[in-house]
């Protein structure tokens, strides 16, 4: 941050060493209490001796509460001039300082139990950090929203004070994905269809043909049918996309309400997935790479790949509208796509027809996949590195792959099986384009999520934009 923080922002949220919500230990540890209670109830020897069970349960309860209270007492957070500071732990003291300019995105999440108590968790995505690194739980929902507003203002370098007061105004949603379509899309996705076909074959094979493959094979297949449906329908229930000052905001979830903000200029790449059946219906899914948002969070079962999901399923014009907002200037139809040479069919008998790439002065687009067509879009000035690869079979066919690497995320831009001269040209051209794009984009927020914010108060947005331009230098 080069510019000095001239007017100190509002002091309401800024107190020294605040504690979290007093109910935090209970909301965090509710599972512990439930498990303890169930264990007590199920234990035969204890059931016969209810007095002992009662004493045990009380002891466990008191112990849990004491531990929770201790951890709550020793956990404090505070906002300093340029960072948020978090002290925790009573045996092993730990201090974590997250600098505002390192925060890539801030979400307010409400796990189920927390929602019952109107509490919320603040999740900060920090570049290079794992998912759990920037969690602050729990606040009352209002506090979390307010703090999120303050942090966003600081992180983006906007000191427009009025914006902090209206962070949680729900702007009218741009689009809501209907549950029916979500369910239909999931049922028609390649994973579910494939698993379903396998399952049906298995049932037919075992009952009609008396061919006992073993029902063990059924379990993973059944999981392949049920798990995506559950995940999509529960996790993406009422998926809502809306536009705020801070960028596009997504909201989803039946039990765990997830909110996520896509800050302008943080989009690294974009992936459009169209499974076989979806293509007939004109549906597709849009995923994003956002700096600092790790897609494959394995510490967090509930969201593995969809850390940066922009649209779980959308119709063509919805997808086009979303693309125009996230990557303005992108016109997929105007980019000339180059197909892979026909001899690639020795390596991809069917899919070679769908291998192509194209580029204009801002984006590189690659497509591949027959069953599930994947279109990756990469911004030139976000390109991390370019790789040329060739295996022994490819060498015989005079083919090579060109990978364009973006930070971790679902996007995987690779021009597969190109003619070697074409590949060499693409490698050089992409390196040049990336270099050119880095030089020309001297004010490093060339991409704005919102060309024209539809917010009611027009004054705040005009005050915000110059500050936003000079933010992440």
């Amino acid at each position, binding site marked *: 941050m080069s510019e000095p923080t001239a007017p100190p922002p509002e002091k309401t949220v800024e107190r020294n060493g605040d504690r979290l919500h007093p109910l935090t230990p209970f909301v965090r540890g509710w599972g512990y209490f439930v498990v303890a209670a169930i264990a007590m109830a199920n234990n035969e020897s204890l059931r016969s001796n209810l007095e002992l069970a009662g004493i045990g349960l009380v002891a466990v309860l008191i112990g849990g509460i004491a531990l929770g209270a201790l951890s709550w007492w020793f956990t404090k957070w505070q906002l300093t001039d340029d960072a948020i500071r978090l002290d925790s732990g009573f045996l092993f003291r730990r201090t974590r300082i997250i600098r505002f300019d390192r925060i890539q995105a801030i979400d307010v999440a409400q796990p189920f139990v927390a929602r019952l108590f109107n509490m919320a968790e603040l999740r900060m995505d920090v570049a290079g950090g794992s998912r759990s690194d920037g969690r602050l739980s729990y606040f009352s929902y209002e506090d979390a929203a307010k703090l999120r507003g303050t942090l966003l203002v600081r992180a983006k370098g906007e000191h427009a004070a009025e914006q902090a007061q209206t962070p949680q105004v729900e702007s009218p949603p741009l689009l809501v994905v209907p549950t029916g379509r979500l369910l239909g899309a999931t049922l028609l996705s390649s994973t579910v269809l494939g698993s379903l076909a396998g399952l049906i074959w298995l049932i037919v094979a075992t009952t009609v043909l008396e061919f006992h493959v073993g029902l063990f094979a059924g379990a993973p297949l059944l999981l392949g049918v049920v798990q995506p449906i559950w995940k999509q329908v529960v996790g993406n229930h009422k998926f809502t996309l809306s536009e705020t000052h801070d960028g596009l905001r997504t909201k989803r979830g039946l039990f765990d309400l997830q909110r996520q903000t896509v800050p302008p200029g943080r989009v690294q790449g974009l992936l459009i997935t169209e499974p076989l059946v979806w293509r007939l219906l004109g549906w597709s899914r849009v995923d994003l790479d956002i700096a600092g948002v790790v897609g494959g969070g394995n510490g967090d079962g509930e969201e593995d790949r969809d850390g940066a999901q922009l649209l779980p399923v959308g119709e063509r014009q919805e997808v086009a509208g979303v693309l125009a907002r996230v990557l303005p200037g992108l016109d997929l139809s105007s980019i000339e796509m180059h197909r892979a040479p026909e001899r690639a069919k020795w390596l991809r008998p069917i899919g070679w027809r769908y291998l192509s790439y194209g580029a204009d002065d801002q984006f590189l687009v690659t497509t591949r996949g027959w069953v599930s067509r994947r279109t990756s879009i990469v911004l030139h000035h976000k390109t*991390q*590195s370019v790789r040329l690869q*060739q295996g022994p079979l490819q060498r015989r066919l005079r083919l090579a792959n060109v990978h364009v*690497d973006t*930070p971790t995320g679902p996007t995987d831009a690779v021009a597969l099986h190109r003619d070697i001269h074409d590949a060499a040209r693409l490698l*050089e051209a992409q390196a040049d384009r990336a270099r050119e794009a880095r030089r020309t984009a001297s004010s490093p927020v060339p991409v704005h999520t919102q060309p024209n914010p539809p917010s009611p108060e027009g004054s705040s947005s005009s005050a915000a934009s110059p500050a936003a331009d000079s933010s992440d*230098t």
Partner: protein
Amino acid sequence: MDDLFAPSDVSWTPVSPKLAAVRRVTAAIVFGLMTIVGLVSFGLMMGWLYGVLWLVVMGIGFAWTWVLIGRNQRSWKYAEREDELLVSHGIMFRQLVVVPYGRMQFVDVAAGPLERAFGIATVELHTATPATDAKIPGLHPDEASRLRDRLSALGQAQAWGL
């Protein structure tokens, strides 16, 4: 053919032949252990003829590995362009990586005990994505630290936010 993975408009620096030596020593240790274990177990269980056969197989395998290591070592090369670092390697599976200096997050210099004994080190350039595979093994320690300093200086000068 070769110019595909080593464009001639930049000057390529090969890595030290000591890299092959280190790898050959490692291979010799692995093959040696496998030979002894195989020889003893085959010899005791199935007859010494099989043990000798095993010895021959291992010998051929080691000779082939020896040649492959040499070829692979000769395939490693890197070049410093004005804005990018280029690393090229591989015989069977070839790869050429182009990393802009400005994309660098940090540089690692590493040397294992065997590498230290032979006086070589590995420099690895990390960007924001683990997919970037910009690793240069088999550098003289002086060259490694020179490269590290140069890369971090260039990375600072051309640093580019995410």
